[in-house]
């Protein structure tokens, strides 16, 4: 079952504007990651935020985490046409024994940045 739910499902902005995507999840987590996917193919890891962190930055990316609300947001500042992609949050809420570690993904936000 899906753990994370991103919203909006789709977002269209002009180049140079900021894009904000949100993710909500259901169970307690150890960390939350954001991934990017171009054209329905492989995913690229963007940033990881741990459950004891509230905010993290990486270049034009800013991620926040509110564990009390079980939500996270990804902000892309000064967007570029090349940022057009789908963005997914993923959590590690499931942890079975023997070191197994699987990520549970949301359905993603499809971002379109118009030049």
């Amino acid at each position, binding site marked *: 079952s*899906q753990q*994370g739910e991103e919203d909006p499902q789709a977002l269209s902005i002009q180049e140079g504007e900021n894009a904000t995507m949100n993710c909500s999840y259901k169970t307690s987590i*150890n*960390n939350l*990651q954001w*991934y990017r996917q171009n054209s*329905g*193919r*492989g*995913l*690229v*890891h963007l940033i*990881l935020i*741990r459950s004891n962190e509230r905010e993290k930055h990486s270049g034009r990316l800013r991620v926040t985490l509110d564990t009390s609300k079980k939500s996270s947001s990804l902000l892309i500042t000064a967007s570029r046409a090349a940022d057009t992609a789908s963005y*997914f949050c*993923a959590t*590690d809420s499931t*942890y*079975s024994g*023997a*070191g*197994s*570690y*699987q*990520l*549970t*993904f*949301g*359905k*993603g936000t499809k971002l379109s940045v118009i030049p």
Partner: protein
Amino acid sequence: GAGVSQSPSNKVTEKGKDVELRCDPISGHTALYWYRQRLGQGLEFLIYFQGNSAPDKSGLPSDRFSAERTGESVSTLTIQRTQQEDSAVYLCASSLEGRRGETQYFGPGTRLLVL
């Protein structure tokens, strides 16, 4: 070094046929994951391999699905008696040790279409 590679890139098959998908992880990565992504959806975890430990098969949707991995190298995902509902992109990922919080590196995926 080379990233995760998958083959074939695309596969079209007839209902009832068996298919085999291949994943070459990043050299030195002990953990390997298979995910399925249906159109417009997030990723569903299928199976996880970690070194010589017993694989975590908890995500396999039916006994028509199986996967093998030889040591810490290539993995194959086999779908027997394919159904139209199996149509999806199958993504493979690897990580260094399979620990919580590790970045997973994804391959480009195999797009499977069952007619």
